[in-house]
């Protein structure tokens, strides 16, 4: 690694006024550093280098700015660097403000950086605070949902950013504002075919928002109507009975016979998890039963090949067709589980996970055996 003297020299090259070829070489070198763990470790100890890099993102040379953004993306992927990256109080507000500019070239890079920074709770809180001070979550959603907001950036990574932010209860609270129409604008994106990143981000956001059972009635009401948007990616072209069809939400009726289900298994799993969360309250369970979620889940289960996703589906089905819990236990999220029972349940969960993995392995082995 570089000595302190060499580091200081490097720093002197990283100013806006430096000769372009020197700047380019310096940034190239640091880009190489940022790709390795040791390099990142080194940079962690040099906050002034990091600050200089941020400043250079405004360089007139597109190539230099791009490299700097690339470096910061690499750094942000490493959690140990998060504190260094956000310690300079000016950094986040500047980045967030730049997102508002519909002509900014590097908005996608900013989205990726922010998405990385918000992965873990601590820095996520810092980012959210900075967001709310100026730009605001509502504006972020607005930009995200406006088709072609930025001609040079697709802003798909705002999806995962939102998903990460909603791990914080305060972010969820802001997003699910009943007086505004912010949350509702995200819903159609569960069907957005052009980007799995965007789609996955939105589904993750919706799933996180389903954690707060006090909002379930609102989510299931006409004001939001989250259910069809969660079910549509899981529904297939199979024909259901007349009775089942009539009870379905409008968006799921008379689907064409070339209807495809969600291709990404992780997204499918998140959709099922969101649905399962909505069954926590008695009212939620009733709503899901009334809207014929069971037939959709049933057909889905017949189609699903991934063991983990299947398991999630089974959990949902069990609640939908199971008996109602005794009085006092209707809200599954508020039931008190005695310690020994909790321990047993954890053991069973671990066991189930093991079995699932075994099953997965067995299936892939069978497949390779057959492929011969």
């Amino acid at each position, binding site marked *: 690694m570089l000595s302190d003297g060499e580091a200081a020299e490097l720093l002197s090259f990283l100013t806006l006024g430096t000769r372009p070829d020197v700047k380019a070489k310096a940034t190239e070198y640091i880009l190489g550093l940022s790709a390795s763990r040791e390099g990142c470790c080194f940079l962690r100890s040099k906050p002034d280098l990091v600050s200089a890099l941020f400043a250079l993102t405004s360089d007139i040379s597109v190539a230099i700015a791009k490299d700097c953004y690339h470096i910061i993306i690499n750094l942000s992927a490493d959690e140990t660097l998060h504190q260094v990256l956000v310690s300079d109080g000016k950094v986040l507000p500047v980045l967030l403000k730049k997102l508002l500019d519909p002509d900014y070239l590097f908005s996608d890079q900013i989205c990726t950086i922010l998405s990385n920074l918000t992965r873990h709770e601590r820095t996520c809180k810092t980012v959210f605070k900075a967001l709310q001070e100026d730009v605001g979550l509502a504006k972020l959603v607005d930009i995200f949902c406006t088709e072609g907001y930025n001609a040079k950036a697709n802003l798909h990574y705002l999806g995962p950013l939102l998903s990460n932010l909603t791990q914080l209860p305060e972010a969820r609270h802001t997003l699910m504002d009943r*007086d505004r*129409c912010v949350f*509702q604008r995200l819903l159609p994106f569960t069907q957005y075919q052009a980007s799995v990143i965007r789609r996955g981000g939105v589904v993750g956001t919706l799933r996180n928002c389903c954690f707060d059972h006090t909002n379930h009635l609102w989510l299931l009401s*006409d*004001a939001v109507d989250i259910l069809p948007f969660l079910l549509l990616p899981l529904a297939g072209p199979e024909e259901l009975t007349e009775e089942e069809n009539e009870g379905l939400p*409008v*968006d799921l009726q008379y689907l064409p016979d070339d209807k495809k289900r969600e291709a990404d298994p992780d997204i499918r799993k998140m959709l099922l998890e969101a649905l399962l969360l909505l069954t926590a309250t008695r009212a939620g369970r009733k709503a899901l039963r009334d809207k014929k979620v069971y037939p959709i889940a049933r057909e889905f289960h017949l189609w699903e090949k991934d063991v983990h996703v299947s398991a999630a589906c089974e959990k949902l089905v069990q609640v939908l067709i199971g008996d109602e819990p005794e009085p006092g236990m209707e809200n599954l999220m508020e039931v008190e589980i005695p310690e020994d029972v909790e321990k047993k349940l954890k053991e069973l969960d671990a066991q189930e996970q093991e079995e699932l993995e075994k099953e997965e392995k067995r299936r892939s082995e069978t497949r390779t055996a057959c492929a011969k």
Partner: protein
Amino acid sequence: MAAETHGDSDDGMDEFMDKFKTQRYKNAFSEKNWEQEFNKIPMFMKTAPEEIDPKNYPELACLQSIIHDDDRSPEEQAKSLKDEGNAFFKEKNYKKAIISYTGALKKKCGDQELNAVLLTNRAASHFHLGNMRSALNDAAAAKKIKPGHLKALIRGAQCCIELRNFSEALQWCDEGLKEHTTDEKLRELRATADKHKRAAERDARKAKVKQKKLHGEKEALLTAIQNRGIKLLQSKKPHLKGSESEDESSAAMEQLRLDGLSSQEVTGAQVFQDEKGLLHWPVLFLYPEHQQSDFISAFCENDCFRDHLNVMFGEELPPWDTDRKYAPHNLQVLCIFFQYFYNGVNVLIADVCYLLTRWYLFNRFFVKAGTPSFIVLVKDSSFFKQFLSGKTIRDL
């Protein structure tokens, strides 16, 4: 007259009052007409007259001319007209309100705020009259001169919903919600528009599925008919070309696609295929001897003629059969066909015990207007002989 001071009184009030002691008051309202008279006085009017005739309502005409005095600035005139329009609006007299607002807009006063309000109010008037297009245009115009004008945005969205243009309604709502993020009405309208949009999409899908199903059923039916070698003719003039060409039968199929196998009968019965795959035809029995006919709505192809004739003639002979000879066992079924390149008329005779399917075998068996027709005559009767004379007879 100079005012005389009389102690406490001023301007001759006392004198005036004293007059009543001696003179009789003239031109008083009578009991009969006092309400009408009161109604003429502007201050006591309950409702304004539709037209203000200066002769009958001089005071009103006076007031009007003060209000609409052209000496005042355009803004003032426009404002007065706006107030007038608003008053009409309150009375639900929307047509008049529109006239007032239009008049106000014509003043072209520079106050854009006022103009936006005028356009929005006129939009509301049109809305209540059911003129959705005009209302929408006015709302759009209002929005143009004052973007973010809440009432215009709400009205525009409402018009779009009424016109069933739900996508546009959503656009209006979203535009409005950008400025007025917490407006409840806009939120509600958006939810409504979204709901209707999705319902309309469902309806479109439903129609498509239904059409596909019908199409499939029709295809299956036509295939079944084609497989039996049956030729279909539309009710128009038949082609004079050769009959068995591919083109003609597919043209006939095409025609079926268009106007269906609709028979000319009022019943609108049509050939159909049952679960066992058997065709059931609507069939006409013609009795030229008595100029009568019978219509059988569903003649299964595996039925024989006798069964159906028994139904018609078995129990009781029809009233038109004056000679009482149309007993089933006396009857014969015929079909006329034309042979091209030969000017004669050919007749095909079949026994009543034959099934309908037997007729398919005849390679000139046509079905006209989706309804096979057969002539029924009494065997060996004089009419029978007469009918057949001059025609070439063939047995089926």
